[in-house]
C-alpha cells in the first residue's frame, strides 16, 4: 500500500467565525478521517512513539484497534495508561513527544497520534456508558493535594490499585490549570468535567474549597491518618517583569486574565458576576502556550489588535506549533525581538502604552537558544491599552512554606526524586509543575503516574516492615 505522506487534516472552525465565539477551534476527526489516518501507522515492532510518551500509552495497539473499528477497545487501551485521554488528545505537545519519534514521520508527516487519541476518547465519551469497575479498598488512605493533571493522574492510579484517595482542591472546581488556564476553545470544560466524573466513578473523593497549607498542613494530614501525601500544587504564582508601571490598571497576569474568563466566565458578564476588561489594543508579553491562549482570548473578547511581544525570533517561540498557527490565522500579530521596559499610564492609573526595546540574537546561551541582546537606543512605544504578562509562573508557595521539613529549591520548587517523586519527608511525594517549574499537562501526568507507583511501593514496603 502506498504510504500517504501527509497527515489527514483536522477539520477546524473557520478563523473569521471562531474569533467571535469560544467554541472549540479544532473539530476532531470523523470516523472516516480516523480510519484513514490510522492506516498510516505501520505498527513498528519497537515503537519509538511509545517511548516518547511520558505515560507510555501503547500507541501501536490503540491504533490497531482503530483499524479494526473497535473504537471503544482503542479507548480502553489508552485508559490503561492515561486517565485523561480526551484532554491529552487536545493539549499534548505531540510534535515533541510521541509524534517526534514516529518512523512514518521520517519521510513525511508523522502519524497524527494526538488527533487519533482525541477521536477515540471522544468516541468513548459519547458511546460507552459502562461505568468503570470500582476496585475494593485496601484500607490505606492517600491524600492528593491539588487537582490538576498531576494530582488527578496520581489519584486515579492509586484508586485503581485499591487505595482510598482524597483529592484536596483550593478552587471551587477541580481540574487546576485545565479549568482555570486553558480556554474553552482549546479544551472544552465539559470534556474536563467528564474526565473528572470518571475519576469520581472510580471512587476518588474530591474536596473543593480546601486550601492545604491553610485549612490543614501536609504534616497534619499525615498525623490524621493519611498514609501518604502527594503534592501536585502546580505553578500557581504569576511572574511579573518588575518594570515600572506594571501595576497600572489594565495590566493582567495571564493567570488572572484566563481565570476570569475560563473559570469565572467573565465573557458572560454581567450574567456571570465576574468582570473582565479588555481594551482595543492588547499586548501579550511572552510566547508560550499560555501567551497564545491569552492573545486568542483577548481577540474573542473584542480586542481590535492583539500583539504577541517576544524577545527572541519566531524560530524560538516555545508555544505548540498548532497553537501559534491558530493564533496567526485568527489575526494575532507577532512583535518579535522586542521586550517591554516600561508600561506607561495616565493620571487615573490606566495603561496608555508600552515602551519596548528591540533585541538581536547573539551566541547560544545555556538553554541552547541564541541569547537575546538589547539594541541600544532602539526604544519605541507601542500604542496599547491592555498588557497581559505571560512570562511564566513560579511554584505556589502555600504548601512549601507551611510544610515543616520539606526541602525546596531557591526558587521555591519542591525537591523531589525525578523517578519517584519522593521528597525530603517520609511519606510525602510531589510532582508536576511544583517540582519542575511550569511545563506541560502530559509531563505533569507522567510525574503523577510515577509517584503513584512509588507511593504504592512505599506503602507496601511499610506494611511488610511492620
Amino acid at each position, binding site marked *: 500500500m502506498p504510504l500517504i505522506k501527509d497527515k489527514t487534516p483536522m477539520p477546524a472552525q473557520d478563523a473569521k467565525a471562531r474569533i467571535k465565539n469560544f467554541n472549540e477551534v479544532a473539530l476532531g476527526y470523523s470516523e472516516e478521517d480516523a480510519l484513514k489516518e490510522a492506516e498510516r501507522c505501520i505498527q513498528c515492532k519497537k515503537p519509538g512513539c511509545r517511548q516518547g510518551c511520558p505515560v507510555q500509552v501503547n500507541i501501536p495497539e490503540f491504533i490497531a484497534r482503530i483499524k479494526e473499528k473497535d473504537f471503544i477497545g482503542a479507548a480502553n487501551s489508552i485508559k490503561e495508561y492515561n486517565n485523561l485521554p480526551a484532554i491529552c488528545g487536545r493539549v499534548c505537545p505531540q510534535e515533541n513527544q510521541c509524534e517526534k519519534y514516529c518512523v512514518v514521520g521520517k519521510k513525511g508527516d508523522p502519524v497524527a497520534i494526538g488527533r487519533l487519541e482525541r477521536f477515540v476518547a471522544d468516541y468513548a465519551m459519547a458511546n460507552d456508558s459502562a461505568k468503570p469497575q470500582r476496585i475494593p479498598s485496601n484500607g490505606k488512605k492517600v491524600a492528593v493535594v491539588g487537582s490538576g493533571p498531576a494530582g488527578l493522574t496520581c489519584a486515579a492510579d492509586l484508586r485503581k490499585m485499591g487505595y482510598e484517595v482524597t483529592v484536596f482542591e483550593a478552587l471551587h472546581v477541580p481540574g487546576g490549570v485545565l479549568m482555570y488556564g486553558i480556554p474553552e476553545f482549546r479544551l472544552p470544560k465539559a470534556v474536563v468535567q467528564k474526565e473528572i466524573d470518571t475519576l469520581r466513578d472510580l471512587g476518588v473523593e474530591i474536596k473543593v*474549597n*480546601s486550601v492545604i497549607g491553610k485549612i*490543614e498542613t501536609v504534616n497534619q494530614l499525615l498525623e490524621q491518618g493519611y498514609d501518604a501525601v502527594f503534592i501536585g500544587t502546580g505553578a500557581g504564582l504569576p511572574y*511579573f517583569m*518588575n518594570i515600572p508601571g506594571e*501595576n497600572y490598571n489594565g495590566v493582567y497576569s495571564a493567570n488572572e486574565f484566563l481565570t476570569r474568563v475560563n473559570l469565572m466566565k467573565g465573557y458572560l458578564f*454581567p450574567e456571570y458576576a465576574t468582570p473582565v476588561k479588555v481594551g482595543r489594543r492588547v499586548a501579550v508579553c511572552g510566547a508560550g502556550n499560555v501567551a497564545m491562549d491569552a492573545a486568542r482570548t483577548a481577540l474573542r473578547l473584542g480586542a481590535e489588535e492583539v500583539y504577541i511581544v517576544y524577545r527572541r525570533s519566531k524560530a524560538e517561540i516555545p508555544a505548540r506549533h498548532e497553537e501559534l498557527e491558530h493564533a496567526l490565522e485568527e489575526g494575532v500579530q507577532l512583535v518579535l525581538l522586542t521586550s517591554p521596559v516600561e508600561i506607561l499610564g495616565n493620571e487615573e492609573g490606566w495603561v496608555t502604552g508600552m515602551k519596548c526595546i528591540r533585541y538581536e540574537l547573539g551566541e547560544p546561551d545555556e538553554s541552547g537558544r541564541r541569547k537575546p541582546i538589547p539594541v541600544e537606543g532602539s526604544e519605541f512605544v507601542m500604542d496599547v491599552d491592555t498588557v497581559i504578562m505571560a512570562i511564566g509562573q513560579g511554584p505556589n508557595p*502555600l504548601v512549601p512554606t507551611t510544610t515543616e521539613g520539606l526541602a525546596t529549591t531557591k526558587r521555591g520548587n519542591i525537591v523531589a526524586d525525578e523517578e519517584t517523586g519522593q521528597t525530603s519527608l517520609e511519606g510525602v511525594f510531589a510532582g508536576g509543575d511544583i517540582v519542575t517549574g511550569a511545563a506541560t499537562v502530559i509531563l505533569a501526568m507522567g510525574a503523577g503516574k510515577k509517584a503513584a507507583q512509588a507511593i504504592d511501593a512505599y506503602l507496601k514496603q511499610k506494611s511488610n516492615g511492620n
Partner: protein
Amino acid sequence: MYQIVRKKVFSPTLKLMDVQAPDVARNVKAGQFVILRMDEMGERIPLTVADYDREAGTITIIFQEVGYSTMALGKLEAGDYLLDFVGPLGEPTDVQNFGKVVCVGGGVGIAPIFPIARALKEAGNEVISIIGARNKDLLFWEEEMRAVSDRLYVATDDGSYGRQGFVTDILKEIIEQEKVDRVWGIGPLVMMRAVSEVTRPSGIKTIVSMNPIMVDGTGMCGACRISVGNETKFACVDGPEFDGHLVDWQLAIRRSQMYKDEEKRAMAKGQCGGGCGCH
C-alpha cells in the same frame, strides 16, 4: 454547601452572617480572610473574618452592601446556603505582647478589627480601641469591642453618636498624650491611609489590612498586587496585613477603581432583576 445559620441586620446595607464552615473555623486566626461564592454565576467575594466559633464550627462575616454581589448576598437569609466558602486565607495577625496598642476600626472595618483586638488583649497588651462610622446606623459591636478593650472611643462623622469627627482625630489625641507601641487600622482605604499618616511622624508601627480586588486568593492570579516599600506584594498570600507607612496608597486606591464601570453595569442589571434584555 455552607449554611447561613444566623443573620443580623445592623442597617439596611450592613449585615452579619454566621456561616457553618467547620473546616475553616477549626484553624482560623485573627487577621485572616475567607472567600465565598453565592452561586454558580457568582463572583468570588473576599471578606476578612469578623469572628469564629470553633465549637459550633461557624465563621462570622460582616459586610456592607456596596456593589452587585454584596447586595445579592445581603438578600440571603438564615437557613440559605452559600455554594462555596473557602479559608482561612492569608497570614494571621502577628500577635505578641507589644505593650500598649491602639486598634482603629472604621465602618465595616470594625468587624475585622474585633478578633485582632481580642487576640492582642489575650496576649497581654493594653488595648485602646477606636471605632467610628459615618453615622450611628452604620456603627455596630460597640459592646463587643468594649469587652475586649481597656478603653473604647466612638466617633461618627455626623455626630449622631459618640464624638463628632473622624477616628483619626481621636487617634491623634491619644498618641500626643501617651506612648503607644503599635497601631492597627482597618477600614476604607482613605481611612487606613489617614491612620497611617497620623502615626507616621511619630514612627509608631502601624498595621493595615488590605482588601484589594482578588480572584482566587491563593497567590495564583496576581490581581491583588499592591506596592509596599516599592516592592510588589500579593495581598492574598503576603498579607492581608502590611505596614501602613510603606503602602503605596495612591496605587491601591487606583486599583480598587478598576471595575467601577462594570460594577455600574452589574448594578443596572440587578435593579431591573436582570433577564429583561434591556442592557
